[in-house]
């Protein structure tokens, strides 16, 4: 099993994790645990949001960089970790039993 699969499994083991998506720099999903339409939607939108957040942080302080983005909503939390080439999106519903 590859390194990637291992990590995914590790994250998946946490309580309430409902989806993991790896997106490339262009917003194209590479690896997903969700169905296709949800994945496409998530990757397209979150990619844009992360890019915006990243540019905001960079604009505020050019030395700074975005490392992690957590979006808390009524139903679940979307965690995003941006990097140069990839974007990892994890969706967790912590209150769900």
């Amino acid at each position, binding site marked *: 099993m590859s390194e990637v699969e291992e990590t995914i499994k590790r994250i998946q083991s*946490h309580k309430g994790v409902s989806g993991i998506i790896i997106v490339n720099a262009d917003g194209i999903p590479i*690896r997903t645990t969700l169905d296709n339409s949800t994945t496409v939607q998530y990757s397209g939108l979150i990619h844009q949001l992360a890019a915006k957040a990243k540019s905001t942080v960079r604009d505020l302080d050019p030395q700074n960089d975005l490392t992690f983005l957590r979006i808390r909503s009524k139903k679940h939390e979307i965690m995003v970790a941006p990097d140069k080439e*990839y974007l990892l999106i994890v969706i967790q519903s912590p209150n769900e039993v």
Partner: protein
Amino acid sequence: MSDTEGKEVSDKEKEHSEEKEMDTAKSPKPRKTPPSSGKSSPKKPGSAKSGTMTPKSPAGSRGRATPKSKGKREEIKMETPAPEEEEDATLPDHCEPIFLSSKTQTIFSCVCDSDVTKENRFKIIPKAAILEDLHNRAGVCDFHPIKNKIIEYPGEEFLLVYDRDFKFGQNFYICFSEETKEKLLHPPKKEGEVVEGEGGVPGEEAEDTTVYKYVPPQSKEWVSHGSEKEIKEESVVEMRRRLKVSVRRKRKLFGAPCKFTDRNVGDAKDGYVECTSYKDKTFDLQKIELDKGIQAIPWFMDSGTQTEWKYPRNANTQYYPREFSQHEQQEILKKKQTGTFMDGVCPRFQLALQQNEIMDVFFNDWLNLGEADNTFGSKADNHLKEYQSFADLQFSKEKKITDIQWHPTIKGIVAVSVAEKLTFDERIDNASKVIMTPSLILIWSFTDPINPQLFLEAPDDIHSFQFCPSNPNIIAGGCQNGQLVLWDISAHADRLKQPRGGNRNKRATVLPGFEDPNALKTPIVRYCAVSSIENSHHAPITDIMWLPDHVEINRMGVPQENKGFESCQIFTCATDNCILVWDTRPTKGPQQQQQGAKPKDKDGTKNPIGVPDTFKHLDLTWKPMLKVHLHKSEPGGDHAPTKFSIAEKQGDRGALSKATDGGVPDKEASVTGGYFQSGKPGSGREKRTLQTVKTHFFVGTEDGEVVYVDWMPQKDQDTGKIQTPKPDFYHTMHDGPIMTVQRSPFFMDILLVVGGWNFTIWKEAVVIDKNNPSSAESLKTLNVAENDALKSGPILQSAPNPIRMTSGFWSPSRPGVFYISKVDGSVDVWDLLDKTHEPSITQSVSPSAITKIYPHAVSHKQHLLAVGDSSGTLHILEIPWSLRLPAPNEVTGVANYFEREVKRRGFVVQRWDFREHEKRELEAEAKKKAGIAPNVLLTDEEIEYRLKLEYQAYMEAEGNFLRELGITKEEEPLPQT
């Protein structure tokens, strides 16, 4: 200086100047106009400005007019220039007239008219000279007669005054006092002026600085101030050539004799020319003044733009997400970069995920704060507060409130029906009185606690009524005599809607003196339809209910979809053992008839009492479309219903979605399926049957029974007639007539039943209907034992209360709370989550028995409890927030509570079975002990023996009985077997 003074001064100066002129004998100047003219020409600016002296002044002319007074004044001033003016003057004090002979005159060099003149009257003579003369001439001396006075005279010089006119008798008078001398020599002020004026020498008088001096005007060089223009304008200049007129006449006509004759003026056309004045159009407008205005404004610019019209066009774009193929994905995932990225990112995720697992950081504590305070019985104010009370002296006093209904849409409107407080017998005895008094429903508004907003008139006392849920202007009421009545208050809806009392507004708009006396009166609305008395109930209608607007039932009692969503069917119940279903829509036949008859109506009498003809088609011919007769399961009368409750709820459209097509949907029906006038009741073919609507319903009876029955008529096995089936079950749990059967607003299957001295709470069991697939479905999940237990009795039964209960009502906002009213005028508030053995609050509300209560959520913040008592007063109480706001999980809590109670009920039933079984066992055992073992096979002998024993026991009993009656004697031997 005041005016009078000024005048005086001018007087004096004028006189003075006159005198001066006279003295100097100058010829009068041209400006010296006669006094009568009194004015100098204003055209002489030089003279006007020349000096302080105005030669003429109005005062001056007046002064002239009164020369006498002027003379007097002069005398006081001791001015004596004019001898004639001194005529009536008196001799000054300390003076002595004296005659001096011409010789003496020469001695003293005061010869008359040479040394002394009229003007220069004074002569100073030294005392020594006189004394010398006296000495020289002795008795001849003219001064001899006054010798003593001369010697006594203290001064050195005497003043001798020449009296030319012998005013005082002699030619001179002499002054003997220094004072007088001084006075005569220096008369105050004016004399100085005179002196000054005469001699040009300034006087010594310092007191008066105003010096009036005549300065003759000097002509100055003319300076133009623009007056020449005025003059020019004034002067007439010839602007145009003069007209020259030459009149000619023939030479021969000159001097010819004239002959005059009379002739009529009217005939003369040639003789004279009339030149009438006319208005010349050319000079119509004379512009003398011209008003012109100028205002600076910014430059104007007119410009326009127009957007180009673009035709809407259908256009679309479609895109698909960019995706990697399976192979590409694999490729990327295998890259080392991906692996490092994942490794680098993973810890952050784990941290975040764990954080979320450990604790919900975003849990809103505030929302759950204060939960503890909400529990019942805390210190918070939890009493019902009196909010308002309504009583009409004329119509509700000494009557009992039979029903209360809040207006479904308008806030602050509550309707109340009242009935006479009479028993049946009393009613019959006082029939005449009862008939005469109108039976009314009173509609109250919070804005006016004194006068009801509306009266609804009924043929007889109303015991129950309800607003139509889909149209609140329609009200159905059940009468004492069993008739069903309908009102339409559409015409008065505005009156109820007015925010402030309807009366006040009217008063404002009507002109004073033109008020309509009826404007302030509460209007009385007559019922617009009443059911046919033969087909109505035969007992007072005790409960009435509009069927929810999404359901209607056909003649067979089958619930169907109501496409118009207008409530049009009414359930009524009365103690004549039946429940009737009415339809407000006209049946096919009568409708056509009515349509035919309509034109006639319009020609003829129009509704005389102003009754809206909404339900004209029903009036007096209205028949129920379905009759549910409540048979008892066993013989011995029927159930007499007082209250009922069906499962369908207004506004709950759930049943529609599960509807199954009962037939082909008819287009027409869906279009016209409408209001009271349209639509056909019972024509069920095109309407969908609502399978999920329960046709079983709870009925509370007069005897305190709770009956659960299906209203759908079925074929009776015995008689083959189609009639209402026998009830599923009935239980007598109450020791008085049922007053309330009401479903909880939160749990459709939970019912509160109030009657007699206690209340019960029931849970509706699921009825297994083999024909109904949906109920069969639910059967799978159903606990059959529990379901049976529900049929066996209530899940909660209260202990009998010492005071009889009159009605009950669920709280509209709290699932565990309900209100119970009692005969002693108090209201009990029960909170099932607080305690179930006694009420949470008991509060006394009225001195008389409460007949009806109705809580209502006016707004989120205000819940009101309407309480009607048997003395006709409607009390409105405010429900405290503790009874208004549900606890956070109250619904679940109450649901759990009911669940537990259902289980308990199941256990009770189980125990019944158990006890029954036990009892049977015990009996069997007892029998065994008695030697009767039913299980053991008996031989013939044994049977014979047992029969013998039985016979013996029978005979013994018979003997005893006969003995008791005294038929047989004691000693009589028993017959031997």
